């Protein structure tokens, strides 16, 4: 019986993950949206800075994306996977040196002042480029933003910059903040960073540390009839088990970002009045990756890396660790990415005998105790699943005579050990794929990155050919040619294994049946929730 449940669930979730990008324009639109009501949502952390223009991360977006809007949002059926928000249209010049945005008319900031192209110019030049964690890379060549009129912003780049990259970066990197609030004093110390002012469907109302955030309806929102909700309250629930209990007790109506642990989902899906939703995260794919320290002479040998890849049973990882709520991975771009993914790469099917042969060939014979060599394995502590995969990997390596010592750290210590001190042989990491390999994927294998940069190649891997490919793709303007280069990139990474991609997963929401219009775009949890409603 349990086996049956797992495989059925696995099948459902797996296919959902694969198909979701095309299949699901709407969920729960059968009912007519109702107006009013307070939506109470579980929040597991309290970001210290709520300004999404400075900190482009899911933890911040979860709350701030309802207050501060971006130029465009991800969409299941829109052109290029985008739908307009503050910008109505965007056009890249053929020479890659400029991008022109036409902005929405009649939009007001929450303090009543009009939104203009000056705000966009200010945000891009003063915030995204110098201060934002992701923008510092993507907008590094941005030199000016011309504002010929109040509703036009023209981004000027010093070097040709692929329009495809800018487009793909819009949903996460283009939060627009008001110039008049930020222009005086240091932007990093502005009080609005903790009480954001934006143009979104909800205004930031109140924050009680350790208890809740409250957002209130913006009556002047530009969206027709939107928002439907009167209030969104984020209740801080630091303990993961309490989110499930709070849902059951009807104290909260929604727990996003897998606040309910995977192991509880089977039980909770049977509770009347609750639904488990696996959609709405297609644009937020996390990748389960084995990071490799190529400074170890054994690991510098391709055969050893191939052996490790063959020793990992991806299917088992998906079914047992992720309980089916994941998909196996073939390379550095996830399968559910509509633009870049290619399946045409070398693969490493689960084959212990082959793995053992490869290690023998590489010259690492088993000693008398059956061991070939010992490795230090550091699983990232951020997710239960990364820790569990660490335990699994240790067993999988034992089967091929590699002895792995697990070193457990908390988040800060793990970051220091892996990305600054390089005190690891293997590490388990969960990098995020952000819709374009140039945003945060290529740096996982590129060489020449200074010590201390997290979620980057700190394993000492150096491949001139791959570096050249990455450099070429970063300045290739033609979308088709650029996409082809990233397909080539996936092949090379899968062939040379600077790291091993094992699985890709996303999050799960659990909500009461009464919550409508959830999961209707690929970044739903971090989108603006203007059309979300409560049917009472």
């Amino acid at each position, binding site marked *: 019986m349990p086996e049956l449940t797992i495989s059925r669930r696995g099948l459902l979730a797996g296919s959902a993950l694969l198909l979701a990008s095309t299949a699901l324009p709407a969920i729960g639109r059968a009912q007519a949206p109702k107006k009013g009501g307070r939506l109470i949502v579980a929040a597991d952390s309290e970001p210290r800075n709520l300004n999404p223009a400075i900190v482009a991360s899911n933890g911040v977006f979860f709350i701030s994306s309802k207050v501060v809007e971006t130029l465009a949002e991800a969409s299941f059926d829109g052109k290029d996977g985008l739908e307009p928000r503050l910008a109505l249209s965007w056009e890249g010049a053929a020479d890659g040196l400029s991008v022109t945005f036409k902005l929405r008319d009649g939009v007001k900031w929450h303090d009543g002042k009009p939104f203009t192209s000056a705000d966009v110019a200010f945000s891009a030049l003063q915030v995204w480029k110098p201060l934002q964690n992701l923008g510092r890379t993507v907008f590094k060549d941005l030199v000016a933003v011309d504002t010929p009129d109040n509703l036009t912003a023209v981004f000027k780049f010093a070097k040709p910059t692929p329009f495809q990259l800018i487009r793909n970066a819009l949903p996460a990197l283009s939060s627009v903040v008001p110039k008049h609030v930020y222009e005086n004093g240091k932007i990093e110390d502005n009080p609005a960073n*903790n009480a954001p002012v934006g143009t979104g469907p909800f205004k930031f109302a109140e924050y009680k540390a350790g208890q809740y955030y409250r957002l209130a309806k913006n009556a002047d929102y530009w969206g027709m009839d939107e928002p439907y909700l009167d209030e969104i309250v984020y209740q801080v629930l630091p303990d993961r088990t309490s989110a499930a209990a709070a849902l059951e007790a009807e104290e909260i109506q929604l727990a996003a970002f897998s606040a309910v642990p995977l192991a509880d989902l089977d039980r909770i899906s049977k509770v009347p009045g609750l639904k488990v939703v696996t959609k709405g995260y297609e644009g937020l794919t996390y990748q389960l990756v084995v990071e490799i320290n190529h400074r170890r002479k054994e690991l510098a040998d391709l055969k050893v890396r191939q052996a490790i890849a063959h020793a990992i049973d991806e299917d088992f990882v998906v079914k047992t660790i992720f309980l089916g709520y994941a998909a196996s991975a073939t390379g550095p771009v996830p399968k559910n990415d509509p633009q870049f993914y290619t399946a045409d790469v070398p693969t490493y099917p689960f084959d212990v005998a082959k793995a053992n042969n490869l290690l023998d060939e590489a010259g690492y014979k088993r000693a008398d105790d059956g061991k070939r060599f010992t490795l230090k394995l550091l699983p990232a502590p951020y997710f239960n699943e990364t820790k569990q995969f660490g335990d699994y990997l240790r067993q999988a390596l034992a089967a091929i005579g590699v002895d792995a010592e697990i070193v457990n750290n908390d*988040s800060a210590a793990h970051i*220091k050990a892996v990305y600054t001190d390089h005190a690891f042989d293997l590490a388990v990491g969960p990098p995020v794929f952000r819709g374009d390999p140039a945003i*945060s994927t290529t740096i996982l294998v590129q060489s020449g990155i200074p010590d201390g*940069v997290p979620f980057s190649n700190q394993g000492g891997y150096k491949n001139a050919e791959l570096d050249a490919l990455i450099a070429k793709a970063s300045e290739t303007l033609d979308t088709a040619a650029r996409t082809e280069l990233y397909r080539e990139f996936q092949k090379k990474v899968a062939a040379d294994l600077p790291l091993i991609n094992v699985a890709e997963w996303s999050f799960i929401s659990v909500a009461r049946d009464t919550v409508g219009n959830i999961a209707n775009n690929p970044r739903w949890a971090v989108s603006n929730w203007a059309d979300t409603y409560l049917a009472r």
Partner: protein
Amino acid sequence: MIALAYSTVGVLSFENESSFAPSYGLAMTRALILLRRRLVGSVFVLLIVVIGSFLLLEAAPGDAVDAYIVSTGGDAGMIELLRHRWGLDQSELTRLANYLWALLHLDLGHSVTFSRPIRDVILERLPTTLILMGSATALSFGLGSALGIYAGAAPGSFRDRFLSVGSLALYAVPGFCLGLVLIVVFAVDLRWLPIGGIETIASAKTGLERAADIATHLVLPVSALGVIYLALYLRMMRAGMAEAWRQDFVLAARARGLPRRRIVLAHVARNALLPLVTMLGLQSAQMLGGSVVIESVFAVPGLGRLAQEAVAGRDTPLLLGIILVSAVLVIVINLLVDLAYAFLDPRVGASEAGA
């Protein structure tokens, strides 16, 4: 780390038990002498606690910037900028000196995890922890000693055995486990009580209504925290009473024909009470530590959870602030306990008053 700091405080403030010379000086004078001695000692204790905690946290791998970039990522330039802005590019010694210098001016510093002054962050959480801890201590002390008297009135009887074993069983249950069971039973299944938090969120309740709201929210966490430590008081009371029954004055009281009820309460229990008061002082420190878990499980925004966040965020000044405030709290409680002692037991502090 915090527990260590607490125990240092606890040990140092209990060194006075051996002054035995009888004196008839006023209890008040003795209390004042105690107070003076404690205050001088406390400053050194606090200094040791601060420096010790600072060094321990420095020894932990990773700093505040490492903890921060876990959720954001970032390039080398951004990381360098952050280290500089947060003063983490200075040497450990400079930072410790700066911290102590600021502390001398009663400035607890600025928290990088909350981007706010530490004083505000702590003051916001302190009342919650005090209410939680105070109620839980009152529950475990009150109920524990009452049950202890009940058990100790007839040592070796069935009710004694039952209460002793039962309370030990509760003591053996981990706090979070008891908390979760309480949540499932009373909040999820029966829905009698709220699941967590300190009050109904964003409810705009005021006055008595708000107090009642907070009280209902406190029932479960206070029970989880209090019931566990109840065993300590129960066992101590019971053991003290079992001891007292064998003393001559009990025999004398019996011989005088006093009613049993009076012997139990006024003679046996009263004599067994003193060690419990000592325990109360020590226990208050442990409660602060125990509430870390309970505060997380019940989502109560108190000092314990703040300390956990400070460690996870490697926010050294914030953690030092919490430890300092907790240490002061423990010292004050122990001072009160000693003062109570001075009133309850005429021997305490008498040597100096006589000299």
